[in-house]
């Protein structure tokens, strides 16, 4: 029997901020879930199962918080599944939820991802103590900066590309009411003059630490037919993983990312992603990852990604808008960041992105990655049901 098509009929986010001191973790996730239910015009009783994701438990200091969150998410008496695949987790969580519908195990599933970074310090949560790791790194930026440098050396990209990405994403964020950073007085010069954190990554080219949650309601054809607003349809979804470190690993363009994208395009019937995809929400926690992923995901030839950025192709009004929401550079509740990419892609094809809507977006890609550029999850959503 062919798979059941999966539709996104509800999306909810919290207003992402540095610290949500006014709510508990339960309050935070419930806020996003309630908004997703309202968007779908459904109630808790309509939900068959809950699939929840977040990044490492050390980020809040709560082991397996889904146990404590069962009540807040209306999961009592229902299946509740917790996914954790590093930074890609928000995307992976949505895909696990989608599989429950496409396998016809459940009809309507609530999927949610969150991080409440203010309850701890993620940078040191990521800086592993001896004996797990040599004391050489401070946070994710320390890990990724050398790979950015390798990209620059390999492609000959000029120094200023990263600043262009950061300036674009932060300006896009001004059009997204849920984005964390709303820097109204930011200029390109200010980005370029911001302090160097991990050479070549400057302060303004780095993601913030956010408190936030994102939820989606996924359902089958029958559920989609009852949806009060246009659904987004899942045309393809995939995960790929490779080891953290090994001889021959290409950190600039990991094969797991390329394979994952190829799988999603195959499922979706995409042969020319640059022309056939209308908007991309990609996981860019450090500015330079935009040109790097443009190549990894097949939107540009090897060595050419930075030219698209430089030419303005990835601007909101360019012909391949990347991160119209402002992206991870403007909002980063780590465990939720992947799901926000997936949800923002869905918002685009539903025509519900408001001021950061890409005109006429019919197919959009949501992308997430994590670990040592080793875990990838992606989905492609469209405004019409997939051809079966």
């Amino acid at each position, binding site marked *: *029997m*062919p*798979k059941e098509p999966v539709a996104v009929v509800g999306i909810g986010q919290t207003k992402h901020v540095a610290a949500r001191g006014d709510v*508990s*973790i339960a309050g935070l996730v419930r806020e996003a879930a309630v908004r997703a239910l309202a968007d779908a015009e459904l109630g808790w009783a309509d939900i068959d199962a809950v699939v929840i994701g977040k990044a*490492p*438990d*050390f*980020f*809040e200091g*709560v*082991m*397996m*918080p*889904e*146990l*404590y*969150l*069962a*009540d807040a998410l209306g999961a*009592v*008496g*229902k*299946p*509740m*599944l*917790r*996914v*954790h*695949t*590093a930074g890609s987790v928000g995307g*992976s969580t949505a895909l*696990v939820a989608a*599989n429950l519908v*496409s*396998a*016809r*195990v459940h009809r309507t599933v609530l999927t949610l991802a969150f991080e409440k970074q203010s309850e701890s310090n993620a940078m040191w*949560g*990521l800086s*592993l*103590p001896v004996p*797990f790791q040599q004391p050489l790194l401070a946070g994710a930026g320390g890990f990724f900066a050398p790979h950015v440098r390798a990209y620059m050396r390999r492609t000959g990209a000029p120094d200023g590309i990263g600043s262009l990405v950061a300036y674009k994403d932060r300006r896009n964020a001004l059009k997204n009411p849920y984005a964390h950073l709303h820097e109204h007085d930011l200029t390109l010069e200010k980005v370029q003059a911001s302090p160097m954190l991990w050479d070549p990554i400057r302060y303004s080219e780095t993601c913030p630490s956010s408190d936030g949650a994102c939820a989606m309601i996924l359902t089958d054809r029958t559920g989609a037919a009852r949806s009060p607003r246009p659904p987004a349809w899942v045309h393809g979804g*995939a*995960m*790929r*993983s*490779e*080891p*953290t470190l*090994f001889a021959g690993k290409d950190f600039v363009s*990991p*094969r797991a990312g390329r*394979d*994952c994208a190829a*799988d999603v395009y195959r499922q979706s019937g995409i042969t020319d992603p640059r022309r056939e995809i209308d908007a991309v929400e990609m996981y860019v926690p450090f500015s330079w990852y935009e040109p790097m992923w443009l190549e990894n995901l097949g939107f540009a030839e090897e060595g050419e990604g930075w030219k698209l950025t430089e030419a303005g192709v990835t601007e909101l009004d360019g012909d391949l808008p990347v991160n119209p929401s402002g992206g991870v550079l403007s909002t980063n509740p780590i465990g939720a960041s992947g799901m926000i990419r997936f949800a923002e892609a869905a918002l685009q094809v539903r025509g519900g992105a408001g001021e950061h809507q890409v005109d006429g977006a019919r197919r959009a890609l949501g992308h997430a990655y994590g*670990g*040592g550029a*080793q*875990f990838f999850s992606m989905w492609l959503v469209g405004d019409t049901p997939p051809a079966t």
Partner: protein
Amino acid sequence: MTPDREVAIVAFAQSDHLRRTDDLSEVEMVMPVLHEVLRQTGLKAADIGFTCSGSSDYLAGRAFSFTMALDGVGAWPPISESHVETDGAWALYEAWVKLLTGEADTALVYSYGKSSPGSVRDVLTRQLDPYYLAPLWPDSVALAALQAQALVDAGAADESALAAIAARSREDARANPHAQLPGARPQGEYVVQPLRTGDCPPIGDGAAAVILAAGDRARELCDRPAWIRGMDHRIEAHSLGVRDLTDSPSTRLAAERAGAFERPVDTAELHAPFSSQEVVLTRALGLDDDVRVNPSGGALAANPVMATGLVRLGEAAARIHRGESDRALAHATSGPCLQQNLVAVLEGDPRA
């Protein structure tokens, strides 16, 4: 639910469960069981359609601990892979769903846990409500003792009944070469009244792996596949104060959804770390004396936290593989006092 696609457990392996494994990293603990399930089926890592694991950073004492275990899988070329931050039984559930979509025909599932480096009683307090409960550090034995006392108060068990469960489990474990506590042990002193040392699981380290396969692929890989006739899991409220600790409605509902009550099972592998929890589960499932409960010795004989539930599914499947069971129920739990429960019903093809 009745699945659209036939999926079976076709191979199972587990490590020896040991009090300490100071000389082994998680990767070193996992690799032998991964190699063993591949050997059983003749598959290579590259033949596996989907891989899913279960583990906990809080046991490992570091963030992203599962990324290192992935090194043991041989994830090159890149693999389709996922991870759950809980017992590996839920990784098996995720993999089963993946096979039901038809996107993969085989799946590798593994999980591992090392409780020895820390104080697991204290570590497990971190999974309680972080605002109201965790600051009080109520440990896992104390909470289980509350549940046991509720059973005693309800007249559903007494200390001698609990002692009999402990003795039977460890006696059965004599036939399990991987068990940590084979053979009878004295019940000992109270750890937390009414639970004595004998009512509590051993603390130890271990790993397990399973291979799933769909349809004819399963028949090629295994002489007598353990078909998953149904599988479901349910969660209860977190606050112990709003639950009836003598019952497990989530286990009963999961079992009903998995089809467990359609016909009797001959075997049940129950994930009951405390003797008292076996009482709760057998009552909730309505298992009568004809059902062989925990022939492996169960969690009272070996409790590699985060793998114990997957071991239950594996042990039940292995009995079907060996022709010692035709229809078995396997159960896994997560959270304090059996908060979350998974039930699978496994069957072998009729014997000629």
